[in-house]
C-alpha cells in the first residue's frame, strides 16, 4: 500500500506500544496484581493498529474481553491501561472494570467480557451515527468464537438491513479458548458468513499491518459513504494463552514458533529498513523510548490509589429527582 516512512513508523511505534504494555502486564499478573481476566494480545498487534489507524477520534470502538490493544490503538494512554489492569483510579473505569470490561468515554470506547454481545449493541452506536449523518462509524472487534453466537447473527442482519455504518473486524486468532477454529466454525473462512447477510466479507493477513490497514481503509471509505457494513476477517495468532497461565495443552510449541516467525512488528521493522531505509539504530531507539515510557506508565499506575468502597457503589443509577433511592 501507499505509505510514507512517517506513516509506517507510526504504525510500528503503535505496535511496539501495544506489545510493551502487554509484556509488562505479564509479571504483574504473575504477582497477582493483575488477575486472570487479563487476556494477552501479543501477536495480534497488527489488527488493532491497522484498524485504528483508519479511525477518527470520534468514531466508536466496540471491543472484546481482550481490549487493551484496541484501546491503546484507539488513543488510550499507557497509564490508563495499566491503571485499569491493576484496578486503580486513573483507569478508564477507575479500576472497577479491570482487564476485560470498561468504558472510556473520551475515546468513544466500550468493551466487555461477554463474547458476541458487541455485534448487537454496535448497531445502536452506528444507528446514532447514521442519524447524525456526519460520517462517524462504529468499529466492532470480535473473535472467531463470537461468530457462532446469536447476537452476531441478529446484529449483522440488522446492520445490513438498515445499512448501518459498522466495520466488523473478526480477529481469528485460531482458538476459541482451547478449541481450534476448524472444530467450531462451520465454514473455512469466517468472512464467508458475510454473504449470509448480504454484506461484503474479506479475509486479510492479520500478521501484516500494512495489509490490514489497506483493507480497512477501503472498507471504512465505503462505510462512511453509506454503503453499509463490511466484515473483515483478520487471520492472526495469540502467542500466549487464552489467559495467562492457561494449560496451553491444545497446541504445539512448533506451531507457536511458526507463527512467531510471521511476527507483525519484526515484519514491519524489516520493511522499514528495506523499503523506507530506516536504520536499525533508529528502530531500536524507538523501542527503547517506548520501553521507558511503558515503565514510567506502569510505575505511575502502581502509585494510584484503589477506588474507595464509597466510589465502588456509586453511579449505579442516575439518582431520581426527589427520591433518596
Amino acid at each position: 500500500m501507499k505509505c510514507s516512512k512517517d506513516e509506517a513508523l507510526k504504525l510500528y511505534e503503535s505496535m511496539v506500544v501495544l506489545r510493551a504494555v502487554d509484556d509488562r502486564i505479564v509479571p504483574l499478573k504473575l504477582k497477582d496484581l493483575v488477575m486472570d481476566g487479563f487476556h494477552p494480545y501479543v501477536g495480534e498487534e497488527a489488527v488493532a493498529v491497522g484498524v485504528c489507524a483508519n479511525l477518527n477520534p470520534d468514531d466508536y470502538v466496540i471491543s472484546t474481553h481482550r481490549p487493551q490493544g484496541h484501546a491503546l490503538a484507539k488513543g488510550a494512554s499507557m497509564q490508563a491501561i495499566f491503571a485499569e489492569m491493576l484496578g486503580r483510579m486513573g483507569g478508564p473505569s477507575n479500576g472497577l472494570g479491570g482487564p476485560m470490561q470498561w468504558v472510556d468515554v473520551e475515546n468513544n470506547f466500550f468493551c466487555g467480557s461477554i463474547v458476541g454481545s458487541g455485534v448487537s449493541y454496535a448497531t445502536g452506536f452506528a444507528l446514532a451515527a447514521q442519524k447524525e449523518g456526519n460520517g462517524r462509524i462504529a468499529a466492532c472487534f470480535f473473535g472467531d468464537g463470537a461468530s457462532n453466537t446469536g447476537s452476531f447473527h441478529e446484529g449483522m442482519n440488522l446492520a445490513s438491513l438498515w445499512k448501518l455504518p459498522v466495520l466488523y473486524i473478526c480477529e481469528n486468532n485460531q482458538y476459541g479458548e482451547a478449541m481450534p477454529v476448524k472444530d467450531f466454525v462451520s465454514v473455512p473462512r469466517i468472512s464467508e458468513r458475510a454473504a449470509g447477510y448480504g454484506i461484503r466479507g474479506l479475509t486479510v493477513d492479520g500478521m501484516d499491518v500494512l495489509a490490514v490497514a489497506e483493507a480497512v481503509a477501503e472498507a471504512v471509505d465505503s462505510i462512511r459513504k453509506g454503503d453499509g457494513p463490511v466484515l473483515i476477517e483478520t487471520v492472526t495468532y495469540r502467542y500466549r494463552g487464552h489467559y495467562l497461565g492457561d494449560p496451553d495443552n491444545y497446541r504445539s510449541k512448533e506451531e507457536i514458533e511458526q507463527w512467531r516467525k510471521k511476527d507483525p512488528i519484526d515484519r514491519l521493522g524489516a520493511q522499514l529498513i528495506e523499503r523506507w531505509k530506516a536504520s536499525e539504530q533508529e528502530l531500536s531507539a524507538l523501542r527503547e523510548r517506548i520501553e521507558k515510557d511503558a515503565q514510567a506508565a506502569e510505575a505511575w499506575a502502581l502509585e494510584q490509589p484503589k477506588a474507595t468502597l464509597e466510589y465502588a457503589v456509586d453511579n449505579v443509577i442516575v439518582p431520581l429527582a426527589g427520591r433518596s433511592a
Partner: protein
Amino acid sequence: MASDRLITFSDAIREALDEEIARDERVYIMGEDVGVWGNLFGCSRGLLDKYGKDRVKDTPISEAAIAGCGVGSAAAGLRPVVEIMYIDFISIAMDQIVNHAARWHQLSGGKVTVPVTIRTQQGVGFRNSSQHSQTLESWFVNVPGLIVVTPATPYDVKGLLKSAIRNENPVIFIEHKAVYRNKGHVPAEEYLIPLAEADVKRPGRDLTIVANSWMVLHALAAAEQLAEEGIDCEVVDPRTLYPLDTETIVASVRKTGRCLVVNEAPAEAGFSAEVAAVVGERCFGDLKAPVRRLTGRRTGIPYDKELERMVVPGVQEVLREARSLAGR
C-alpha cells in the same frame, strides 16, 4: 374536570409515545411490528404514518439486536423506546440489558447514561400458555442499574411512560396484557407521574393490600366488597418496583397493622418477597398479624381458560386472604 376523558390503557400509551416523539427529536421507537401493525395492542397505531420510518422502526424478530440497538444508541445520545413484544422473549435480550445497559453508567464513572426505555408486557389473560404469559418482573428488580415499572391504569401508564422516556436510566417498563382495553380517566392536558412514587389507590384503616400491575385491579375490586363487610382496606400500588417507595408502604402498614401482598409471580424470591421483607424489617412492632402473601402458583401457565385463571390470584382469592388476615 372538563378535560377529563375516558380512554383505554393502549390509547394512553399511544398518547405518551406520540407526545414524547414530538417533544424530543432524539426519541424513536423500535420493535417487532410497532410500525405497520402499530403494536399487538394498538399502542403505537398511526405513529408510523405520522412520524415516518426514522422515528418508528419495525425490526426483524431479533430481541438481542433490538435491545442492543436500543442500548447502544442510548449511550450514543438517542432516547430509544424499544419494545419486546412479550416479556418471555426478553430472555433472548437479557445479555444486552443486564451485562451492558445496566453497567455502563457505573463503568464510565457516571459520564455515560443509557436512557433506553424497554417496553414489554407480561402476565396471563390471553390463554397464551407457558411461553407467552409469565410474570418475570423480579428478574430485573435484582439487577443493579435498572429501573422497573409496572403500571396498572391508563392514567398511570401515560404519566409513567413519559417519565420513563425522559429518565436517564435504563427503564424496564412492564405492562400487563389483560389491561390494554381497560378504560380510565386521563386528562387531556400533559402530565407526568414521577418514577419511584407509590400510589394509595384506596385509603383504608383495617388492612393494607400491596399489589402491582393487574393485581391492583383485583385488590380494588375486592376492597369494594370487603368494605360492605366492614373491612376497610387500603390498596397501595408501588407502580415502580425499583426504586421502591418503601415509605408509602411502611406508613400504610404502620397505620393498619395488617399487610397482604398480592403478586402474580411465584412467591419464591418474587416481588412479593421483597415487599414482605421490607414490611417485616420496618413494621415488626406495628403488625397485628404476620405479613401474608397471595401469589401465582409455582408452575408453567396452563392453556385452559379456567386453569389459567386458577394459577394466579383473582378477586375471590384476595377476598379469602383478606378476610382471614382481618380475622373474619
